């Protein structure tokens, strides 16, 4: 049995699955239920200064695709709307009940040293394992100069991180906003400020949909809407790219990563971990299906690790990072072509029409004795994978390697590249 125990910058948890700072971690009742269900840790929903914020009614929007509910999700909820001392009491109570679980507290106060200093002391008193700085909230709080308004300015990230390290013994995790041009700016700033770790991504600014009767963005609040924070399975690719960029950045080495963004099952978690995250945080999947999903995540990850021979999570953390390269490092001599398994083909013709209309006209639509037959024209196929992706039958279209595998030739050496580096004499 693979060992799932996690030690994330000194924060221990029985598995790497944490609930992200969000509605599911807003109060003791929920967090106790989560821990009973098997979650390794939680990041408590963001605390702020009293008086608490006020939330609106009508808070979530969802993107359903082809009958799949909640493929994407967004919210316009702010940080906790409960008084600070109630949250602090509950955090203390939970930590006492579950000493083996990770309890990290998310924080967001105005960009003033005194504000941070004050709340850090209060959190430390609860016995919490660490803090996460919410520099990511993309709506509402950012209009008040907090959340992503801080996260978008590397100097502020560095400054607040430094305050937190100065005024607290707790490990500091900086939660990054994806609503920026280059994730490395704030990530490196967090590193310079002394952060132990970064967590990412926070939600992406979004308009979920437009109610065409009301003519307002959803979720609609009395006839009006605002942009919200996008999350759920649809954002996973965006999140993974940002995680991987930080994981491979020389300046960010030594800083741990907690991966967030559409993680719904063990496979998603394994992918984030292979890209350098050492814990993962989940919210939307739990909000969709309840806390019990963690059982499958832990079981699935453990079984997969056993199959691969990974004894613990550390054994494959960041393992895919050496293979995450820049485009110019890809082999231009690698050549694959599509191959259609005629025995499993169901004759839907989607491969043909996709290639014919939008790609390289390399799948012929034939009629043989009245029957449909789709055949790859190998000379025309550029190996783009489009047909494989549109084919509804798994493994019916596969991409077969055709090149001789002889030389690895990148753009840097290619003769079409006017800036190419000549091989050394």
């Amino acid at each position: 049995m693979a060992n799932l125990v996690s030690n994330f910058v000194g924060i221990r948890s029985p598995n790497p699955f944490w609930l992200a700072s969000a509605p599911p971690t807003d109060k003791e009742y929920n967090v106790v239920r989560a821990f009973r269900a098997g979650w390794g840790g939680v990041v408590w929903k963001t605390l702020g200064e009293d008086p608490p914020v006020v939330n609106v009614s009508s808070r979530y929007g969802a993107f359903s695709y082809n009958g799949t509910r909640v493929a994407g999700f967004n919210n316009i909820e702010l940080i906790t709307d409960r008084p600070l001392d109630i949250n602090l009491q509950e955090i203390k109570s939970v930590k006492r009940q579950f000493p083996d679980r990770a309890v990290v507290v998310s924080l967001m106060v105005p960009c003033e040293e005194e504000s941070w200093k004050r709340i850090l002391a209060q959190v430390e008193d609860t016995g919490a394992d660490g803090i996460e700085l919410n520099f990511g909230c993309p709506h509402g709080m950012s209009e008040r100069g907090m959340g992503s308004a801080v996260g978008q300015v590397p100097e502020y990230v560095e400054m607040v991180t430094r305050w937190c390290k100065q005024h607290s013994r707790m490990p500091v995790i900086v939660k990054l906003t994806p609503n920026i041009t280059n994730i490395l700016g704030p990530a490196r700033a967090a590193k310079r400020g002394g952060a132990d770790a970064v967590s990412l991504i926070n939600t992406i600014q979004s308009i979920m949909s437009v109610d065409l009767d009301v003519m307002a963005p959803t979720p609609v609040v009395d006839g009006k809407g605002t942009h919200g924070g996008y999350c759920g399975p649809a954002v996973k690719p965006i999140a993974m790219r940002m995680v991987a960029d930080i994981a491979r950045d020389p300046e960010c080495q030594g800083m741990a990563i907690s991966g967030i963004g559409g993680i719904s099952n063990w496979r998603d978690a394994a992918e984030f971990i292979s890209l350098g995250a050492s814990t993962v945080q989940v919210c939307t999947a739990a909000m969709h299906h309840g806390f019990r999903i963690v059982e499958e995540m832990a079981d699935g990850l453990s079984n997969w690790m056993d199959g691969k021979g990974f004894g613990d999570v550390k054994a494959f953390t960041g393992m895919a990072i050496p293979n995450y390269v820049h485009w110019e490092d890809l082999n231009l001599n690698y050549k694959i072509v599509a191959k259609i398994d005629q025995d499993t083909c169901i004759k839907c013709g989607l491969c043909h029409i996709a290639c014919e209309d939008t790609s390289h006209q390399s799948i012929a639509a034939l009629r043989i004795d009245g029957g449909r037959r789709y055949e790859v024209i190998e000379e025309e196929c550029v190996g783009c994978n489009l047909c494989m992706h549109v084919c509804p039958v798994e493994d019916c279209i596969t991409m077969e390697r055709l090149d001789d595998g002889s030389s690895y030739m990148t753009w840097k050496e290619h003769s079409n590249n006017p800036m190419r580096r000549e091989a050394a004499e």
Partner: protein
Amino acid sequence: MTSVMDVPADIAPGRLSPREYEVNFDDATPPLNRKQALIEAARCYFCYDAPCMEACPTGIDIPSFIRKIATDNVKGAAVTILEENIMGGTCARVCPTEILCEQACVRTAQEHKPVTIGALQRYATDWLFDREIQPFTRAEPTGRKVAVVGAGPAGLSCAHALALHGHDVTVFEMQPKAGGLNEYGIAAYKMTNDFAQREVDFILSAGGITVEYGKALGRDITLAQLRADYDAVFLGIGHNAVNALRIAGEDLAGVSNAVDFIAALRQAPDKSALPVGRKIVVIGGGNTAIDVATQSKRLGAEDVTIVYRRGPESMSATGAEQEWAQTNGVRIKYWAQPRTLVGSGGSLREVEFEYTVLDEAGRLAGTGEVFRVPADMVFKAIGQSFVPSAVGEEGFAEILEFQPDGRFAVNEDRQTSLANVFAGGDCIGGIDLTVSAVQDGKVAARAIHRLLTGS
């Protein structure tokens, strides 16, 4: 010992409670709601060169209409269907989709679970009908006149297409209602809420069509006169004869044609008033046999047996239809042919059958071994035909050309041997379905339009 022959025939109405009649003749396949339709529509792959489309006799653009359902453009979906098949509503209810579009669906190949195209088609067409939307606009009148004989699926399809082109169409119908077998020949639980008439009203509401009821060819009108009075004639007159068993006892009380019973049942406002036997035997293997057997059972008959002279795979009723009858408690007995209808006091009491086999040459043969099935009623469902001489018009059988089985000979435009006379539906043969009749009418209308406009 008392023989079955000593017990009088038990044929009576009112065998069930009012509630049972209501349930038994309600919609056998309830419609999809929006949620169900969206989930089912999402299963469609939107195939290129879709096999389902090719399998539909009317060539409905099935992937397109399903995609429109998936995007909540239900009106668009309905129009896509009705543009190719004006009786898309009936076809959604009665088509044997398991041997047409749904058999061809690539999901059948993939997982033996096709997209339920028929149910989706019903969802879309019901949506339009429920809102009484008329999506078609008639072209400016051309002044050309066409006579259509028979207001069944073929005739109405032809009339509708011609009327939209601006031609004036007069439809002659011998029955008091239009719709043909949609109205008189399909099991009641497939066509609830007077759907056949609602569809007729929809077709006629596009304008340009006048229906003259109670007018039969050869009795009230003649082809010769129609040819003289109109620019073109379309004959959609269906069958005019029911095949007989040609065995002893066919005249006994209790022996009747299945089609007559089905028609009477459809027209009866109160099903409890319909007399039905306690023991029923149905002879035949088509959808008519299934419909009469299942409906007899649903009227309260105790034992209903369909006897067919060959095996299940030879039946023209599909596997799904046979299963439907069986789950309704109908027994299907294969490999037996009727020998004698045995009566007592002028009433049917038993049917004697002989077992059948295929001989060495593959021909059907009796084994000589017989058995008897008690019966208060026998329904004959061994097929219908078109007999030209049964059309009462002088010289009718001489002015046209016919196929060897008596049906009209037509070319691919459904044009008969007379240049301005076209025909379609059961009177030209084919696959004996509403959908193919609609296609005949549509194809003929295109040809007639070309003939009238020279285009």
